[in-house]
């Protein structure tokens, strides 16, 4: 699927480039990426507010390309909630069903149940303006799920809420999705939110899907430098493949030879980029070398509570290591300027696709 926009000056920007996604029925699917990556445009194409320049949208096997939003079996939870200010909470939730011509007891029953599901049962007569942010969010949810859409589209629905409420609603949303068994397509720029809630995540960058997979796959085995750094933090170490065996590869870097369990299919001599998560680096004081060790000096220490973040200087490269702030072995804390040995476990050294 492709999508381009023209700006006011008439210049064309390709906002979606060669998107090919297969979202499974009943899964919690997230589109994750920085602002401007095209994730919201993709969502709006699914909802029917935008049309792709080329390609097709299929929902439940039916071609929905060109079908207006009111005739699609999808509903949207908007970033701004977009609650109708002139209608009560009840009438907001009932809007979609009334539009379908449902009335009487069936309407009351379904609206009541949807409001109970998101725990706004008592707010029926209130106007949206008299609700808190979290309550409005729930009304927006109820207004969408009451229609029992095949796909529920959520456009950064939690971004306007404060951290505590956001965490609460994250859990509630994923529980809700499990209970309803509805397909959720969730747009967010918050990597933690995506990791916590999703069955699968598509990481998007500049109109393309960089990587698609389960949260754990994306975090443990990022395929590109973008994914490695957008989901959490990563240390990137460039190098050249020195040796390949069925058990992995040995890469020559500025820090010497580093062994990894990945890259068994690479050719010798190829330039590669290694990536390792800061919390997977092990800082040690002893000098005995067991391989995959890098000498480094502590440049700076950031105390974040649960962990200490060490900024290290190693062979002219800056590395970051997180060490859990555990009281077991209090002498594990390192000092400024201290020389340490960094152990890079071969199973944590991922080879990225682009060199």
């Amino acid at each position, binding site marked *: 699927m492709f999508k381009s926009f023209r700006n006011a000056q008439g210049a064309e920007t390709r906002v979606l480039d060669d998107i090919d996604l297969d979202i499974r029925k009943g899964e919690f699917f997230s589109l994750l990426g920085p602002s401007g990556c095209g994730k919201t445009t993709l969502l709006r194409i699914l909802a029917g507010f935008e049309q792709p320049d080329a390609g097709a949208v299929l929902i439940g096997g039916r071609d929905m390309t060109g079908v207006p939003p009111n005739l699609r079996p999808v509903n949207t939870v908007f970033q701004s909630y*977009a609650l109708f200010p*002139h209608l009560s909470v009840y009438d907001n939730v009932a809007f979609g069903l009334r539009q379908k011509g449902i009335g009487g007891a069936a309407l009351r029953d379904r609206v009541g149940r949807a409001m109970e599901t998101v725990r706004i049962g008592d707010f029926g007569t209130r106007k949206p*303006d008299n609700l808190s942010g979290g309550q409005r969010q729930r009304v927006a949810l109820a207004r969408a799920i009451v229609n029992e859409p095949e796909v529920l589209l959520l456009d950064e629905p939690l971004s306007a809420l404060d951290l505590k409420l956001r965490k609460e609603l994250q859990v509630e949303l994923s529980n809700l999705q499990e209970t309803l068994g509805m397909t959720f397509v969730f747009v967010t720029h918050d990597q933690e939110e995506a990791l916590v809630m999703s069955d699968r995540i598509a990481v998007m960058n500049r109109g393309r899907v960089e990587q698609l997979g389960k949260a754990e796959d994306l975090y443990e085995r990022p395929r590109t430098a973008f994914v490695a750094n957008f989901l959490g933090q990563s240390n990137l170490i460039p190098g050249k493949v020195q040796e390949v065996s069925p058990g992995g590869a040995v890469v020559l870097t500025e820090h010497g030879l580093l062994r990894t369990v990945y890259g068994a299919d690479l050719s010798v001599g190829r330039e590669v980029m290694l990536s390792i998560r800061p919390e997977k680096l092990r800082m040690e004081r002893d000098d005995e070398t067991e391989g995959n060790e890098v000498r480094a000096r502590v440049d700076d220490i950031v105390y974040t509570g649960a962990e200490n973040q060490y900024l290290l200087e190693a062979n002219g490269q800056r590395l970051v290591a997180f060490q859990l702030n555990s009281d077991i072995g209090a002498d594990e804390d390192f000092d400024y300027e201290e020389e340490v040995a960094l152990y890079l476990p071969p199973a944590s050294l991922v080879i990225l696709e682009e060199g």
Partner: protein
Amino acid sequence: MMRRTHPALSAWAWLVYGFLYLPILVLIIFSFNDSKFGGTWAGFTTKWYGVLLAREDVREALTNTLLVALSSTLISTVLGTLVGLGLWRYSTRFRLPLTFLLVTPIVIPDVVMGVSLLMFYSLVRGGLELTGWTFENGFWTVMFAHVTFQISYVALTVRSRLAGYDRSLEEAARDLGASSVQSFLRVILPLALPGVLAGALLAFTLSLDDFVVTYFTSGSGFRTLPVLIYTSVKKGVTPDINALSTLLVLVTVVAIIAANAIMRPRPGRRGEA
């Protein structure tokens, strides 16, 4: 605690308001003056209002005024509402020039509007005469002349009423199964309605009060109340004209207060998370 205002400042404020309203107050008082000639007070009476209503030319002018005001308000409200909605809904590079073009008729001197409309109508008449048709200046020319300045007011009130609302409201309605017409009728129009009503009231009073544009476009046989007042006063101010002016002031003030009450934002209406 209230801050004490400097006495000189409040005196100045009284002076300004007096300057604005004393002439109108004098007019109202003298409409109840039991004397054929202005200037001296000869006791309270309401007889001039009776005299006024008995006058054939006043009754005719009143009918003309109301017909012009009602029909021009109807037309300009529909057109102006559509313009206001368009300005709210579409973000094009023409938005700023379009807004400018809307404000211009408000600030252009009435005399210029009147002269240009007079010229415009005679041009149209000249063109029509080639096909054998013609028209006299009268109800229709006055009515459409009023529409030209009313549209701006309606469009601007409607736009400012909608300004605080998110444009995704319309998308939300579409998303919930409403066609574009249904989303207009069930969501956008109800939200815009106070603005539409306030704009209509404003347009109505503007038409009611207009003298200059009407004078230029009305021709000889068609008179509205302001034009009647003007031509009567040329022969000298009479108490019944004071009474007529008082009534005009009253209707206008009531309409403006109503328009303000409709448009006043209720507390928390635009509260955002």
